[in-house]
């Protein structure tokens, strides 16, 4: 085995990734990795996955030219990849369908998941209803309060939502609690992790289940423009929508990849979730990647107006793309995201999720600096319905 494939088999992205878990979880992770490796090469699995993406989730999603916004900004043409139009309102359903099929193959009929904004929880609850699985979703109490509508949706879909009161009561703590559940119940339970995070094989597997986003976008853009875009922009919490969009373009060196982290309300530790501006390599929740931490290696608190980006570490593949320079990572603050949300709503009639609004905010900065014949694709990873309470309060609607 070559060194490179040895690293890959251990789930490494450069130096990042790996498996930093209690021993009890190694066997279930091995079982999952083996099941996925087989399913991936199985045409029947792929056919069923593609069929569900098309007939249940609503793929392909459109690539919409944001004409008025592009005109207002006076630079590059902005195209929106419309993951917000998928069933359940965000890209998360892609991965949930893939892992749901895999859980069925493995004979696991109990599914657990964590959720931040609630979008992954809703997508998981949806897939569990579709497949007839038992479903438990862990959610931080702070997130339950700010995403109450999604809590109700999960319950309507038949899932049990378990509040997590430990730590910062957000996504990080929900993952801890889901991992504790999995350690105790791994023989009967599949942990449907919702981002390109965690121990191998999750970061690769979740990436693969979202790769359709970029493959479609690349095809669609080539059809419309006859060439590749100059730039892709996506928000990055754990980083699944961004990886989903970027992967098909990784070999296209001329296409600039931009990930947008949550700048929150300031640059001090605890006030944001920008891992590449204040974070450093460390281990959290199974993987080696950039982590926001204090001088003693304790995980730092985070803040973002967007629950889906409010997380102290980032997918290990992003850590590699950052270090190699293939992708650039910037941040947009709460205020910029809220303003971008209003702007897209008024110029295009599209209300993005607060997570995706971070990507729109960066597009508003970049587009005017680019020539008018240039083009960019911005991933609208989810729709803003779930955020209406926050938007009503923050924008005084």
């Amino acid at each position, binding site marked *: 085995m070559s060194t490179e494939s040895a690293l890959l088999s251990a789930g490494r992205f450069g130096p990042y990734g790996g498996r930093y878990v209690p*021993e009890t979880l190694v066997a279930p992770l091995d079982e999952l990795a083996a099941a996925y490796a087989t399913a991936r090469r199985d045409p029947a699995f792929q056919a069923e996955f593609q069929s569900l993406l098309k007939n249940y989730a609503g793929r392909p999603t459109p690539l919409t030219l944001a004409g008025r916004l592009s005109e207002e900004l006076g630079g590059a043409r902005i195209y929106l990849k419309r993951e917000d139009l998928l069933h359940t309102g965000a890209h998360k359903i892609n991965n949930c369908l893939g892992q749901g099929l895999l859980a069925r193959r493995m004979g696991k009929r109990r599914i657990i998941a964590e959720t931040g904004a609630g979008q992954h929880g809703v997508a998981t609850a949806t897939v569990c209803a579709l497949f007839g699985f038992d479903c438990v979703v862990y959610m931080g109490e702070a997130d339950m309060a700010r995403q109450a509508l999604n809590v109700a949706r999960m319950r309507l879909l038949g899932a049990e939502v378990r509040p997590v009161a430990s730590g910062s009561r957000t996504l990080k703590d929900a993952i801890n609690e889901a991992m504790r559940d999995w350690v105790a119940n791994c023989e009967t339970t599949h942990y449907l992790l919702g981002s390109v995070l965690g121990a191998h094989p999750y970061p690769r597997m979740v990436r693969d289940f979202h790769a359709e986003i970029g493959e479609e976008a690349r095809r669609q853009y080539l059809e419309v423009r006859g060439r590749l875009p100059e730039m892709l922009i996506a928000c990055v919490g754990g980083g699944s929508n961004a990886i989903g969009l970027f992967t098909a373009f990784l070999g296209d060196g001329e296409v600039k990849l931009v990930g947008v982290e949550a700048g929150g309300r300031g640059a001090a530790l605890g006030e944001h979730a920008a891992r590449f501006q204040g974070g450093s390599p460390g*281990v959290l929740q199974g993987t080696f990647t950039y982590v926001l931490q204090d001088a003693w290696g*304790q995980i730092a608190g985070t803040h973002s107006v967007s629950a889906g980006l409010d997380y102290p570490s980032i997918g290990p593949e992003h850590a590699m793309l950052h270090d190699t320079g293939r992708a650039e990572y910037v941040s947009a603050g709460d205020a910029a995201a809220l303003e971008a949300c209003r702007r897209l709503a008024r110029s295009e009639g599209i209300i993005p999720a607060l997570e995706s609004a971070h990507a729109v905010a960066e597009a508003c900065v970049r587009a005017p600096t680019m020539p008018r014949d240039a083009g960019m694709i911005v991933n609208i990873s989810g729709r803003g319905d779930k955020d209406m309470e926050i938007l009503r309060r923050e924008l005084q609607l």
Partner: protein
Amino acid sequence: MSRFASIFARARAESRCALIPYLTAGDPTAGATLAACEAMAAAGADIIELGIPFSDPLADGPVIQAASERALAQGMTLEGVLKLAAMLRQAAPALGILLFGYYNPLLRYGLEAFAAAAARAGADGVLVTDLIPEEAEAYCAALAARQLDPVFLAAPTSPDERLGRIAAASRGFIYAVSRTGVTGARRQVPEGAHTLVARLRRHTALPLALGFGISTPEQAREVAGFADGVVVGTALVERMAAAVKQNGPQAAAGAAAEFIRSLRAGIALAAPGRA
């Protein structure tokens, strides 16, 4: 002979298993932790697992999570734990000291710097809950350079080939996890625990300590019938916390010592069944 090896040899000579309490350093204060460790050593504890508190203890149940939170709120750091270990070594020269925690604080400190400091403090070994042998090359090298024993976990879910790998990477002893799940007290010793210990024996001559869920002298006695060491964590942390709540931090040591005496008495009765 390493200190761990001589501790297990002595326990075997006395026809009993080694008694290994866990507590979180700095819960409720550094001073109370030190006093509790000294009192437990005097009451018959063989090895202390000195827990390094971590913000995200994902292998721990609610009791040890809360202990970690209290310790961090007190300002406990890895450096503080190392200082405590050094003081404990001064006070109890024969006591085994195992530093017990999660990987990130060690990484942040620097693996080589950590190993040097841990050896200087007089620790005997280290167990990192979220580190498996496959990811531990640099860590094992750093510990080996300072004659510190890496102790790894073995789980009921670990297949035989992994048990071999865990045995090959471990020094001093192996920590067998009695059941799947996080730390926390249980009514009974799980059936799978016996099987795991028996499976491990086929791969190693190292002493085997069993932990997770053991909370009473009766359970400790049962474990002493088939393992070389018994780890008691949650039940101890819970008793200390209850005593502290009632009578303040100075009550922790007395509560800890009393519990250790009762466990030690339970273990002593196990002799006839031992191989």
